[in-house]
């Protein structure tokens, strides 16, 4: 695996590892992405920015991994040019072209290698620009961006200009893979067991394991059941019993586009049922899951799209939301 080697040698390998560690990803810098041509390994991959273009495309749900990009030239109309560390909610998905597969090599060398052209369909739901993230401290700041917007007058980035990087938090679940599932199960289990005191049963890691698999693949594949049972010393029936008990866990790939609409009392009081009916009649193709309370009861009707909470939903806002979720051709 030449690419794997390349990543390891990259000056940022340490940062990737740190990132991965913080997010509980044991597959340092690695993962798989579903592409029209199949799967691609792309966790924590770094690639030249001009290969990242903002484009509209299929929305998929469930946050997944990161790509670090050199020199941001994504659609500047949509991505405000500010900040040295700054959070933004990016509604425009990007297409990442070529050379992505774990390549930490430079643009030049990847061009030389002339990999087959790949187009990865990725929908980031948050982009953090990391100007000169060279240390763990920089990462610290970037990571805490939900609470920090620092530095208003950082030099704006030119496509060809100084090195800067974009951290893309993607939201594309990957296609089911037994190998990847097995790797994730053993990594997640090890992490949970490291915390437990001696003697505490491993089976207590079942929920985190299921969350992790769903996070990665978008659902819990039937073939994961025997793997989980084996890893945790449970019967398959026990594992299935747990999966079926919790409404979060799904056993089939998620429909897209989808959103969770609050149907509990405080939102009922401000017309959530009306919004539900509106969505059903106007946008029947949108999968509207019911949930009971999103903790936004003073600003209802509320919905959750991926990790994003939406408040004060009325018909126009619901329409706009659907439009945003829609694949734009």
């Amino acid at each position, binding site marked *: 695996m030449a690419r794997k080697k390349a990543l390891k040698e990259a000056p940022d390998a340490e940062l990737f590892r740190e990132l991965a560690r913080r997010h509980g990803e044991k597959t340092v810098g690695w993962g798989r992405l579903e592409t029209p041509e199949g799967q691609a390994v792309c966790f924590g991959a770094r690639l030249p920015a001009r290969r990242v273009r903002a484009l509209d495309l299929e929305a998929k749900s469930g946050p997944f991994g990161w790509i670090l990009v050199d020199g941001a030239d994504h659609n500047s109309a949509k991505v405000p040019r500010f900040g040295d560390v700054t959070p933004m909610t990016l509604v425009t998905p990007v297409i990442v072209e070529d050379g992505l597969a774990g390549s930490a090599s430079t643009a030049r060398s990847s061009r030389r290698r002339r990999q087959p052209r790949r187009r990865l369909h990725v929908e980031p739901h948050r982009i953090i620009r990391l100007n000169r993230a060279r240390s763990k401290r920089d990462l610290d700041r970037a990571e805490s961006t939900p609470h920090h917007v620092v530095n208003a007058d950082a030099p704006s980035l030119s496509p060809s200009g100084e090195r800067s990087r974009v951290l893309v938090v993607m939201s594309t679940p990957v296609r089911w893979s037994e190998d990847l599932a097995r790797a994730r199960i053993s990594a997640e289990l090890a992490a949970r067991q490291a*915390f437990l005191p001696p003697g505490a049963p491993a089976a207590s890691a079942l*929920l985190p394991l299921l969350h992790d698999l769903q996070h990665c693949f978008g659902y819990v594949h039937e073939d994961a059941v025997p793997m989980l049972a084996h890893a945790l010393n449970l019967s398959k029936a026990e594992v299935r019993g747990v999966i079926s008990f919790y409404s979060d866990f799904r056993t089939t790939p998620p429909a897209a586009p989808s959103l969770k609409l609050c149907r509990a*009392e405080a939102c009922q009081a401000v017309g959530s049922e009306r919004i539900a009916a509106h969505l059903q009649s106007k946008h029947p193709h949108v999968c509207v899951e019911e949930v009971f*309370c999103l903790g936004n009861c003073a600003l209802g009707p509320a919905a959750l799209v991926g990790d994003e909470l939406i*408040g004060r939903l009325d018909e126009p806002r619901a329409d706009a939301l659907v439009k945003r979720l829609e694949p734009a051709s």
Partner: protein
Amino acid sequence: MKVFVPADAAACSVGADDVASAIVKEAAARGVPVEVVRTGTRGLLWLEPMVEVETQEGRVAYGPVRVDEVSSLFEARFFEGGAHPRSLGVTTELPLFAKQHRLTFSRVGLIDPLSLTDFRTNGGLEGLARARELGSSAVLDEVLASGLRGRGGAGFPAGIKWRTVAQATAPQKYVVCNADEGDSGTFADRMLMEGDPFVLLEGMAIAALTVGASRGFVYVRSEYPRAVSVLRRAIELWRAERLLGPAFDVEVRVGAGAYVCGEETSLLESLEGKRGEVRAKPPLPAHAGLFGAPTLVNNVLTLAAVPFIVAEGAAAYQAQGVAKSRGTMPVQVGGNVKRGGLFEVPFGVTLRELVMDWGGGTASGRPVHAVQVGGPLGAYFPVKLLDTPLDYEAMASAGGLVGHAGIVVFDDTVDMARQAAFAFEFCAKESCGKCTPCRIGSTRGAETLAQVARGLEPEKNLALVKELCTVLTDASLCALGGLTPMPVMSALTHFPAAFAPRSTS
């Protein structure tokens, strides 16, 4: 110049992220050196996105700010406190803020939630330091003397629970923070975890020290992704500075969409990796909880109240409140209300004050018709009972409960028969399945109420509903089945007209 913009999920649900971005962008374009700090929310949610600026008079607020108003804010030199149509004045002098007693939420909305420096300079870690000086039994005395009762719903005295766990002898004990916050109308736990996660860790560290626990879990519902990530970062920061103590560590576990997992024994089952089925009590979790070990289970707000109590002394906390309900309650007012938000007030304030004076009546402008207090298992109060004070005993004698202090306002367009049916449906959906009345009776209840609505044998059917309620009350292992009759019966009792046969047209 510092500008503060909330990063709280609720504030962001109405555009706080966009406003923060717009401010940074505008500042850059105008060459104004502005530093944007993301905070929690002050809880005045109808004013969100609320932007604050540091001035000589203190922080001044602007809100609600729309993205397209950012440029005019700069024109008005808001970053120096300049006047603007959105000016609200000094934040702490806003009437609905000044009237509060922010003991638990003192830092929420004020500080950068993940800045240890901010936390320390605003009184953080004082409770933990004092707890280390005092030692276990003196801390127990403080918690007992404070009169603090569990904020998760049942209102059980925290000190007694702590003492039980402290007195248990076992090689391993656990502290579990219940952050499942499933009740509709409540968001205080979320607001606290996002706005001041360190205070929760401080409370857990004090608890662990006091009861002798070496591991802690925070069980956060999956509907709160932002709280989960803030809390995880907070734990990392504490670990790095070794603030949790030499023998204590905390991990966040995420729920999976089951309301019943807020019930403490169901929560423990879930932590053990099982179906969230409620356990029979005894044994109490304090004796045999997680993995059979003595376990302290407390709500987020219970644990977060402790640092203040230990730092300032039980008397300071005890001084607030009435009768057997001591201290303050972060009340959450939501639903159809003009000024929805979180108000931390002493116990004893009446529902009317909360709904009318604080909340400003309905958002729709129509008359208030019903107010549900304490989540989906809480009673619906009619307007004539709104003078009931918020205190555990007074609420109970009015046929209701305080619960997690969520207050949901409905105007006169509400169909109370529908709300009663919803209570049954919710119970049916969320039942863990152990008790027959809860699992099956609830569905039966919803169907029967549907028949009532259609005018089918209303008297016979209503009698059946009442009977079902009695069975649920008597034969349920936990409060999900046991308290579903509360919203149903309160609706029947206080709003009988809603159950009269409808015209079929």
